[in-house]
Structure formats: structure tokens, C-alpha cells
């Protein structure tokens, strides 16, 4: 199952996702051990493989550090669902082959702990706990292709 970790907050920034005191390394496992540390010290322990983070507006604002995405990927987070995303973070996610879902009203439609399943291509979230089906605008095909190839560089190499 993919469990939702809901943060009813806007502007969750890259300093909270991975504090700059850990940017002296790009070792993914080490970054992952500190992911979300300054926002939720228990996140690493409670996040299971494939779990989803749900938040409000402007997720990922701040620095251009791709380390934020690597830390989330390293912690096996499956995707981020947010009302809106900051620009550089959003682009970094696609470039790294990491799914992002823009969903108006996200923190109200999904509760903390809900078991959810996402069909990224169809643009459908199946909230198994609440028994609801939530639709969203899927990413354009070229972005899905980049993500499915494992990121921009792998996508380019493949071509």
C-alpha cells in the first residue's frame, strides 16, 4: 500500500526537505536519512516504500538543490501531491524521474494515513481508505516519458 503523509501547509521549502548542513555530500543514502528532518523529525521512520507526501501550495520553494529530490527518492517516497509546486523543484523532479501531481485542494481530499493508488497517465487517484476517486490533470506525455525512462539524462542517452 501507499500511505499518504499529509502536511496541511504551504511553502514547504528545500531547506526543510533537506537542510543545507547536509549538502556537503551527494550520497543519496545519507541525504535520505535526513529527508524532511526540520519539518518532521519522525518522517524517515514512518515513511514506507512508495508512500506519498501530500501538501498545500508552493511545495519545494527555495533553493535549486536537486538534493531535495534525491533525498525523497532515496527515502523511497513514491510521489508528491501538492496544490502547487515551486518551479525549479517541479522541473528537477521530472528531470530525476520522480512523479509530481498537481491537485487543487489536495490536503482536504486526502487524509493523513489514507491508502492511495495513483494512475499517473490517466490522472486518477484512487483513495482506497475513503473509497473516492480523484481526478487530476496528468503530466504531458513528454514529461511522463522522461520520468519512465528514469530521468532526463537517461532519456537523452536512450535517444
Amino acid at each position, binding site marked *: 500500500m501507499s500511505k499518504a503523509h499529509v502536511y496541511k501547509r504551504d511553502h514547504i521549502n528545500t*531547506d526543510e526537505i533537506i537542510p543545507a548542513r547536509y*549538502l*556537503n*555530500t551527494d550520497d543519496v543514502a545519507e541525504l535520505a536519512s535526513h529527508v524532511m528532518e*526540520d519539518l518532521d523529525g519522525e518522517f524517515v521512520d514512518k515513511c514506507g516504500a512508495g508512500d506519498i507526501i501530500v501538501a498545500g501550495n*508552493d511545495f519545494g520553494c527555495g533553493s535549486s538543490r536537486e538534493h531535495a529530490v534525491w533525498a525523497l527518492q532515496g527515502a523511497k517516497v513514491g510521489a508528491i501531491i501538492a496544490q502547487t509546486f515551486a*518551479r*525549479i523543484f517541479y522541473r528537477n523532479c521530472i528531470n530525476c524521474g520522480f512523479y509530481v501531481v498537481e491537485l487543487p485542494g489536495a490536503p482536504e481530499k486526502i487524509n493523513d494515513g489514507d491508502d492511495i493508488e495513483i494512475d499517473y497517465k490517466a490522472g486518477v487517484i484512487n483513495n482506497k481508505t475513503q473509497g473516492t476517486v480523484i481526478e487530476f490533470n496528468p503530466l504531458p506525455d513528454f514529461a511522463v516519458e522522461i520520468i519512465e525512462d528514469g530521468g532526463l539524462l537517461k532519456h537523452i*542517452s536512450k535517444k
Partner: protein
Amino acid sequence: MGMTITEKIFAKATGQDSVKAGDLVNANIDIVMCHDVTTPPAISMLKANGIDKVFDTEKIVVTPDHFQPAKDIKSAELHKRLDTWAREKGIKHYYPVGKAGVCHALLPEQGHIRPGEVIVGGDSHTCTYGAFAAFSTGIGSTDLAAAIATGQLWFKVPESMKFVLNGSLNKGVYSKDVILEAIRIVKTDGALYRAMEFVGPALREMSMEARMTITNMAIEAGGKNGIIAFDEVTKEYLDAHLKDKKDYVVFESDADANYVETIEIDCSALEPMIAKPSLPSNGVKISVCAGEAMDQSYIGSCTNGRIEDMRIAAEIMKGKKVAIRTIVVPATPDIWKACIDEGLAEIFYDAGCVFSAPTCGACLGGFMGILAAGEKCVSSTNRNFVGRMGSPKSGVFLASAATAAASAIEGKLADPRNYL
């Protein structure tokens, strides 16, 4: 319909007569900025994908800055990877430790920024260079790797948002106060995906240093880029700083160009601003927050670590003592030397400040001035997110270099106008 400066730059960078906001374009990059945190991973990615080339050894500018000189073993490893790569590839404009400085102060100072060009960098404050009527934006390591290898990146041409800076700044009020007011108005995502174009009479009176403070913080409003039209002030700066390639193209926004929103700010009515923890949009006037006790003052960074900021801080501190620990960090070696030559370093020493070598240092919680739990720092930097300068239980209060200097003397948030 006419075009904005940003659209015209993209038209040039894609070899087209015109582009409009929303167009997806593959643009040629004129300058790629590389530093010690985001470039080593980009280099590793290129190697891992079997890509060995760089697109142009003269169009990539490299400087360690975030953790320079290396603060610990891990950052030394990052620096080693950056250094080895820059030398191996024969990067012409590589600034190793000794020549290295805070990237967004160093590149314009060393003549790498020209109007009309497209500049990307592996750092969110790359938007700084828009002060020179260039398009510049921050990117992550993967885009950086692609830019280094190919000299091209895809972009969605941004919509433009106009900020009209009316009136004239009063004594003791600076461009930092203007941008903190602009971010207070539009909030941290009010310019998301947009070009922030700054115009108006108050802007025309500002030096290039002061203008760079404004475009530097475009990202704090979510902006893709900040941009300011070329004028005599720009020309004078470029005449003094451009070295190898001195030609450039000047674009102006057409009278009928499209702006999705216009924000007017009366600069004559502004007073010194403080952005309280933990968002840059938490701006309040100094008159409503003066007196709040601080533990540290920090004067430096790509926002306000330039010579003009050093002069302003020194003017306020001259003959006085600081009441709290105060760290002064000139952003580049040339600024550091000017501080010595002009007697500013001596003023800082006499006042009881630490006068540091150029580094991004404590601005991002790296080193050289980290905060303990419960501590508060008034800082001339650009971000005050939770834990930005150290403990997640510390607080950062963003201000101009003048306000940070006045607050250092009083040990609490203070109005710099009382010292000028």
C-alpha cells in the same frame, strides 16, 4: 502585440523573429555558472551516462563558494571533484580558492554577464544577473549537466509581471527594503513561473549593486527571472568590468508588450524593512519591530555582500562597538581587498566584528556563523526559512546591510536612519 525584454532575449536565443509567453523553446545558453554544491553531482551524472564533453570551455564559469574554503572533509571532496574536472576540461574561467567568491557577486564583477544573453546556473539566485537586462535563471544538477554538455536547454517562455518603483528612496532606505516590500505584497509564490520586470524612477537612481539586490530575490517571490532594462548606469558598470567579449545586444520591452499583472510601489513612502522568520514575505516596517533582541548580525551574501553594502555598514559602525557577535563577509576577493584599501576592514575590526574571507558561509547554514537553538540573527541575506542559518529552532530576520549594521550596534533590531 509587442514583446517584453524577456521574450526578445528568447527570440534571439532561439533564432526566431518573435516568441510569446507560453511558447516552449529550445534556447542556446551563453553562460553556465557552476559552483561547489550542485556541479559535482552534475559532473558525476555526465560520467555515469558516458558524456565526456563540455559544450564550450569559454562559456562555463566555475567557482567554489558555498563551503569555500572547504569547511570539512566532505566539502573538500566536493571541491576536489570540481577542481579536477575544471582543470581536466580546460575551463577558461575557473576561479579556484583565492580567486573564488560568492558566484552572483563574482560573475558580474569579473565581466561574465552581458545584456541580451541567456545565463543559467546551478543555484536558485542565478536570477541576480537579470539586473543587466539578461535572462538568467536557476536550475538543478540534471539541467546543469545537460547545459554543460549541450549548451542548450528547453524553456517555457514566461509571462511577465511589472513592478513599477515610483518615487525616490529616502536616506537609510535601500533596494533591499524595496524587494522585501515587493515580496510582502505578492508573497513567496506571487510571481511563480513569471518574469519579474522592474521599472520606474526609483530604480533608475540605483547603482548596479543595488539593482542586483532586487533581481537576486526574484526567486523569493517564485519568479523564473528578474529583469531590469539597460541604461547609462548599466553601461558604466559594463564598461568598467567587461574583459574579453565586450559586445552585447540591448533589448527593451515594447510599449504594447503584455504584462499579466502590474504592482506599483511608492518608494518615497518606504521605511527600512525586516522580514521576520520564517518566510521572506513576512516583511514588517522597522518602526513596528525595533527593539527585538538579537544574538547575531550577519552582513554578506549574494544579496548584500558587495562593496556598496560594506561601505554602508562601515559608515554606520565607524567609531562604534557592536553589542552582539557580528560577522562581515565581503562576497569576493576584490571586495575583500577594497575593504582593506578603503579602511573599512579596520572599522569592522575596531567595532568588534569578525571580518571573514569570501564565502556563502552561514547564509545557507554552511559554516562561519551558525546559530544555536533559540538564537536570532539579523541578516543581509535572502532566505529565512526554518533552520536556514543553523538550528531549526533559530530565527533569521532579513534586512538591508544598513539595518543589520545598526542592529549590531544596539544588539536589537534598530533603525539605520538614526545613524546616518
